[in-house]
C-alpha cells in the first residue's frame, strides 16, 4: 500500500499587486501502483504542486497525505526526479545511486546489490564508476531515476524529467520508464507539458487550468498495457490526444489573454 493524497491544496504568493493565487483548492488521490500524469500550460503551477507533494514547499492551505498520514517535511517516502538531472558531479554513477541507501545506513553489500541491479536495468552497464560528466543527457536522467528508485520510495514524483531531452531520446526514455514501472509498480505522480508523453505513460491524466491552477478535467487512459511504440499510432491514442489538446489549447489562450489584460 502506497498512496498519496493531496487534499484541498492552495498556494498563494504575495506579489507586487497584492496576493497572487497560484493553485486553487486542488485535491487528487493517486492510489497504490497508479501512474498519474499532470499536464497543463506552462506557468499553471504544476511543478509547484509537485514540490508541495514532495514536502519541499509548504502550501498556504491543505495537506499532503502518504498512506493516510499527513506529511509536513520532505522525506524518503517521496522520491523525486527533476528535469535538470541534478546528479552529484563528484560522485560516480554508482555512488550517486547509492546515495539514498547510504543515508539510510543500508549495509554496503546490500547497497551494492541494489545499485548493480539498477545500473543494469537502466542500461548503464559499464558506466558504474564513471563520473556524470561523461554521460549523455539521457544517461544522466536514467541514473537520476535509478537514484530515486534506489531510495525505495513509496511514491515517485517526477517533474518533467524528459523535458530537456531531444525527441528521439525522450521516446526511448518513455518506453524504458513504462518497462521499469511495470516491474516495480511504484505509485507515480508525473508532471509534464507533453500531452503525448502523459497519454503514453499514464493511467490517469489530470489536466490543469492556467493560473490560478485548478484541475480542469480528469481523464482515464484506457489503453491496455504493456504499451509499446505501436501504442502511439493507435486510434485510441489519437482520440485521447485530441481531447487533451483541445482543453490545453483553450487554457493556453486564456493564459495569454490574462497576461495581455494585465499588461
Amino acid at each position, binding site marked *: 500500500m502506497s498512496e498519496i493524497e493531496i487534499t484541498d491544496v492552495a498556494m498563494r504568493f504575495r506579489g507586487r499587486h497584492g496576493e497572487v493565487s497560484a493553485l486553487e483548492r486542488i485535491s487528487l488521490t493517486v492510489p497504490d501502483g497508479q501512474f498519474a500524469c499532470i499536464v497543463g500550460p506552462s506557468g499553471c503551477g504544476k511543478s509547484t504542486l509537485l514540490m508541495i507533494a514532495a514536502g519541499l514547499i509548504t502550501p498556504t492551505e491543505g495537506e499532503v497525505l502518504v498512506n493516510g498520514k499527513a506529511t509536513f517535511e*520532505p*522525506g*524518503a517516502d517521496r522520491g523525486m526526479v*527533476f528535469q535538470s538531472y*541534478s546528479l552529484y558531479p563528484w560522485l560516480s554513477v554508482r555512488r550517486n545511486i547509492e546515495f539514498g541507501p547510504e543515508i539510510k545506513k543500508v549495509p554496503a553489500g546490500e547497497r551494492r546489490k541494489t545499485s548493480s541491479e539498477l545500473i543494469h536495468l537502466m542500461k548503464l552497464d559499464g558506466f558504474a564508476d564513471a563520473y*556524470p560528466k561523461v554521460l549523455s543527457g539521457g544517461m544522466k536522467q536514467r541514473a*537520476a531515476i535509478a537514484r*530515486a528508485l534506489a531510495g525505495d520510495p513509496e511514491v515517485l514524483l517526477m517533474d518533467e524529467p524528459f523535458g530537456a531531452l531531444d525527441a528521439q531520446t525522450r521516446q526511448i526514455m518513455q518506453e524504458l520508464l513504462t518497462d521499469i514501472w511495470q516491474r516495480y509498480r511504484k505509485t507515480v505522480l508525473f508532471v509534464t507539458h507533453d500531452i503525448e508523453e502523459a497519454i503514453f505513460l499514464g493511467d490517469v491524466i489530470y489536466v490543469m487550468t492556467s493560473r490560478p491552477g485548478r484541475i480542469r478535467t480528469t481523464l482515464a487512459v484506457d489503453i491496455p498495457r504493456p504499451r509499446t511504440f505501436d501504442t502511439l499510432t493507435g486510434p485510441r491514442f489519437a482520440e485521447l490526444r485530441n481531447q487533451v489538446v483541445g482543453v490545453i489549447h483553450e487554457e493556453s489562450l486564456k493564459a495569454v489573454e490574462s497576461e495581455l489584460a494585465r499588461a
Partner: protein
Amino acid sequence: MSRVPAARVAPAPPAVTPRRRRGFIRTYLTPKQAIPGRARLTLAIGSFVVVVGVWSGLAALVQNSSPQYGALFVPSPYQVVVTWWDMMVNLGFYNDVGWSAFRIVAGFLLAAAAAVPLGLLMGSFEAVRSFFNPPINAIRYMPASAFIPLLILLQGLGEDEKITIIWIGVFFQLVLMVMDIAHRVPDEMLNVAYTLGASRWTVFYKVFLPATFPEVVDALRITMGWAWTYLIVAELVAAEHGIGSFILIAERYLRADRIIAAIITIGALGLITDTLFAIVHRLAFPYVEKVRA
C-alpha cells in the same frame, strides 16, 4: 506498405572531388575556430621571443645613444639575468623572497581560514548574509593599501602589520566570492537529497559543501594573485626585508636591473603558485567538466 522503388544507379563521381579550401585566412582568421596544435605552440613561444626581442632592441638603442647611463636605466635581458644571479649569490635576495613568501602564506591562510567558512555560511543562510553583507560590501571598496598608514600607527612595522594588510586585501574579496559560489549551488541538488531522506545536516556536509569545493579553490587561486600586490605595496612603504623593500633599496641606488629582476621574480613566483593551484584542482576534482578555454 508501399514498396520503395530501387534507387537508380548513382552517377559516376566527378573526376575532381570538391575539397574545402584551406587558405591561411580560412585557417587562422575564422572567429572561434581551433588552429593546429603546432601553430598554437609556435605562437606561445613566439610571444616570448617577441617580448625579449623588442626589449633587447630597445636596450641596445638606448645604450648606444647614451653609453654612459643607458645600461643603468634600460638594461638588456641578458644583463638582468646576470644581475639576478648576482642578487641570489651575493646579495641574499633569496632571503627577501623567503620573507615575502612567508608573509604571503601567513596572511593568505589566515584570510582564507576566515573568509571561506563565513562565505559559505553567508551563501547558505539568509540571516547570516543579511547581517554581514552590508559592512563587508562597504569595506571591499576601501583599498587595502589605504590602511597601511593606519596599521603602521596601530601595529608598527613588524610582520603583523604586513600580514594584516594581506588579510584585509584578501578577506573582503574572498568572502564575497565564496558567498556567491555557495549561493549558486542549485536548489535541486539539495532537494534531491531531502527527498532521499537526508537531514539538514547531511544535506549540508554531503551535498552543499562538496558542491562548492572546486569553485572555492578557483577563488583562492584568483585572490592569491591579489595578495602579492598588497604585500609588495606594504613592503614598498616600510619593511626591513622582502622583495618590496629590496626594490625600494635598488631604486635608491639607481639599479633598474635589480628592480626588473625582482619584478620578474614576483611574476615567476605567481606563475608557480598558480600552476600548483591548477595541479591541486586537477587532482582533487577530476570530475569537474572542463570548459574549453
